[in-house]
């Protein structure tokens, strides 16, 4: 067991840090949260900057440890988040890389890396959330096209995306997981309506996407027809333990800020609050170590594990605890949306739900790691 980084890794870190020190001050001002075109421009601009500096590939080709360092350092330096590049870099891109044809890779990968095209994700549907395989958006073949009708939900950046990685049902008679196909849908195709979806935090980070006989060329299908479930899962399982690196680094910073705030406003003297923060410190130290553990295992094995469910179960809960503690530090100010941490507290509520509820994650841990039988 070794927690020191190799000379090579430390070198990567040092060069990255130095580069960030120069690159970040040159960034344009951050757009406001509801300025979607501005956000697209900003996020793509940052991706282009990374590309030019040779860091664009880090999510795809780099060793997990290198990726960990990249995510840790960019978060520490306050660099922009992956933002509008999320789906392209972290899901659609890797899927195309793994399952696409040469022509598809040539068409789609480079624009993602260069920060030229934005992807969004059309997986969830109103009636297919935890049970994703229940999706009902239909597609049927018509000449060289698929014709798609249905609706998708929880789609980020739909307003400004160029492409949507879309799961559709092409064989309604097949078993649930069998009749699904993966398509790359151009977002400017006729028949697409995007409606912003307001969350309980008051913002419209997500959208609903309604599809009314949208034509998608069959050449945009990745993988075989009706093989979309496997195509998608290949990429989901690509996760190498780095999904939450930046967030854990950020949570540890927030915890320090909470301690300072509590000392400033006198609440630090309450042992109940102080020890609660101490337990969170223990928690996030451990979550950081668990991240390093999962990354090291992934580096060594090359085979992605499902330890991600263990991590997500604990982390999503810990994040909610963190912001509940923040509310106690703030006192009355916890009701003021203009104070730091208050909106984060609202956002934290989604963590035990999104990307697989805690209930689903516990099923996964119990059945796939512990080998307990599936319920009847």
């Amino acid at each position, binding site marked *: *067991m*070794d*927690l*020191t*980084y*190799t000379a090579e*890794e430390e070198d990567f870190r040092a060069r990255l840090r130095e580069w960030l020190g120069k690159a970040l001050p040159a960034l344009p001002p951050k757009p406001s949260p509801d300025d979607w075109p501005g956000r697209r421009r900003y996020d793509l601009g940052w991706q282009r900057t990374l590309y030019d500096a040779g860091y664009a590939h880090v999510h795809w080709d780099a060793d997990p*440890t290198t990726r*960990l360092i990249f995510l840790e350092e960019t978060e520490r330096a306050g660099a922009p988040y992956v933002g509008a590049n999320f789906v392209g870099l972290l899901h659609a891109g890797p899927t195309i890389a793994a399952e696409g044809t040469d022509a598809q890779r040539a068409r789609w990968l480079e624009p993602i890396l260069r920060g030229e095209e934005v992807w969004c994700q059309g997986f969830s549907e109103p009636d297919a959330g935890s049970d994703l395989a229940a999706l009902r958006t239909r597609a049927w073949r018509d000449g060289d096209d698929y014709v798609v009708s249905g609706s998708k939900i929880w789609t980020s950046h739909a307003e400004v995306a160029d492409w949507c990685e879309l799961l559709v049902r092409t064989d309604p008679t097949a078993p649930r997981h069998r009749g699904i196909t993966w398509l790359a849908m151009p977002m400017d195709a006729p028949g697409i309506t995007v409606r912003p979806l307001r969350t309980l935090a008051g913002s419209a980070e997500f959208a609903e996407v309604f599809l009314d006989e949208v034509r998608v060329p069959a050449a945009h299908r990745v993988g075989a027809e009706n093989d979309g479930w496997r195509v998608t899962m290949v990429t989901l399982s690509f996760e190498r333990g780095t999904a939450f690196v930046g967030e854990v680094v950020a949570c540890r910073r927030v*915890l*320090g*800020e909470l*301690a*300072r705030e509590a*000392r400033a406003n006198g609440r*630090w003297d309450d042992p109940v609050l*102080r*020890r609660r*923060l*101490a*337990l969170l*410190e*223990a*928690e996030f*130290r*451990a*979550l950081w*170590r*668990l991240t*390093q*553990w999962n*990354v*090291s*295992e992934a*580096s*060594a094995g090359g085979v992605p594990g499902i*330890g991600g469910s*263990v991590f997500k*179960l*604990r982390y999503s809960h810990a994040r909610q605890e963190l912001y509940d503690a923040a509310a106690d530090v703030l006192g009355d100010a916890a009701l003021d949306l203009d104070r730091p941490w208050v909106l984060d507290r609202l956002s934290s509520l989604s963590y035990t739900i999104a990307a697989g509820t805690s*209930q689903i*994650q*516990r*099923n996964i*841990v*119990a*059945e796939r*790691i*512990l*080998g*307990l*039988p*599936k*319920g*009847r």
Partner: protein
Amino acid sequence: MRFRLTDDQRALGQGVRDLLARRFDRDALRAAVERPALDRELWRELGAAGFFALRLPETEGGVGLGLPEAVLAFEEAGRALLPGPLVATHLAAGRVPGAAEGETVVTTADTGGLVEWLTEADVVDGVDGDVSGAVALRSVDPLTPLHRLPRRAGRTAAEPVAVLLTAAEQLGTATRACELAVQHARTREQFGQPIGAFQAVKHLCADLLVRVEVARAAVYAAAVTAGPADIAAARLLADEAAVRGARECLQVYGGMGFTWEADVHLLLKRAWVRTRRAGGGTESEELLAGELLAGAGR
């Protein structure tokens, strides 16, 4: 960064596990419960295997390994519910003659308070070896005889290595609790299926594993860094994983878990005993709180 077990470390852990499976299996455990005494022969065998001398330099006749290896060995001891003042004897190796070899059994009395295995031990560390005024308790754990000593002088901070090795034992016990719960959930049938097929039981087991794995990351990392704050975090998480793990294992076991014959209560009682050792609870919490505030200016 290669934060995973090396082949040597894996082999070391497996070696201790094999030794204990051979010399302290479930039958031996239950026999010890009915007749709690230290198995001096096993103790010497552990000494011969390097359990106590693990961290002593080779120049002093030790194995010359580090804290990570010690943590792995103590995790196995905790998993097997091996009785005896293992931590104190390990810490005394090289300092108290015979400790490294498992010939001398050393317990610790710190500055007073609870003392484990006082009567059976050959040497008592702390309180200048003065154990007058020691009163025997009727110990809740059938495998840990306890005495209480009057407290002396100002209490000093807990020895970090002792805190960490206790955390390692707790981790092992938590692991065993998870294993027992899962095994029971797989085999016990009610309502026509293994109870592990019911979400309520399934989710108890999942939560058990999560607590174990989070504690494991903390304990192993603290073994690598040896930092007091890392050790405090490891101890808090391992204490919780062991105590809650044993409690929830008992819940999975149902009525059978409430019997003396099932091992679950032995896990819980030992976990309770270890939580009372120096460095637990409030002590580690306040250490971490101080560290958090000090580091908050970073």
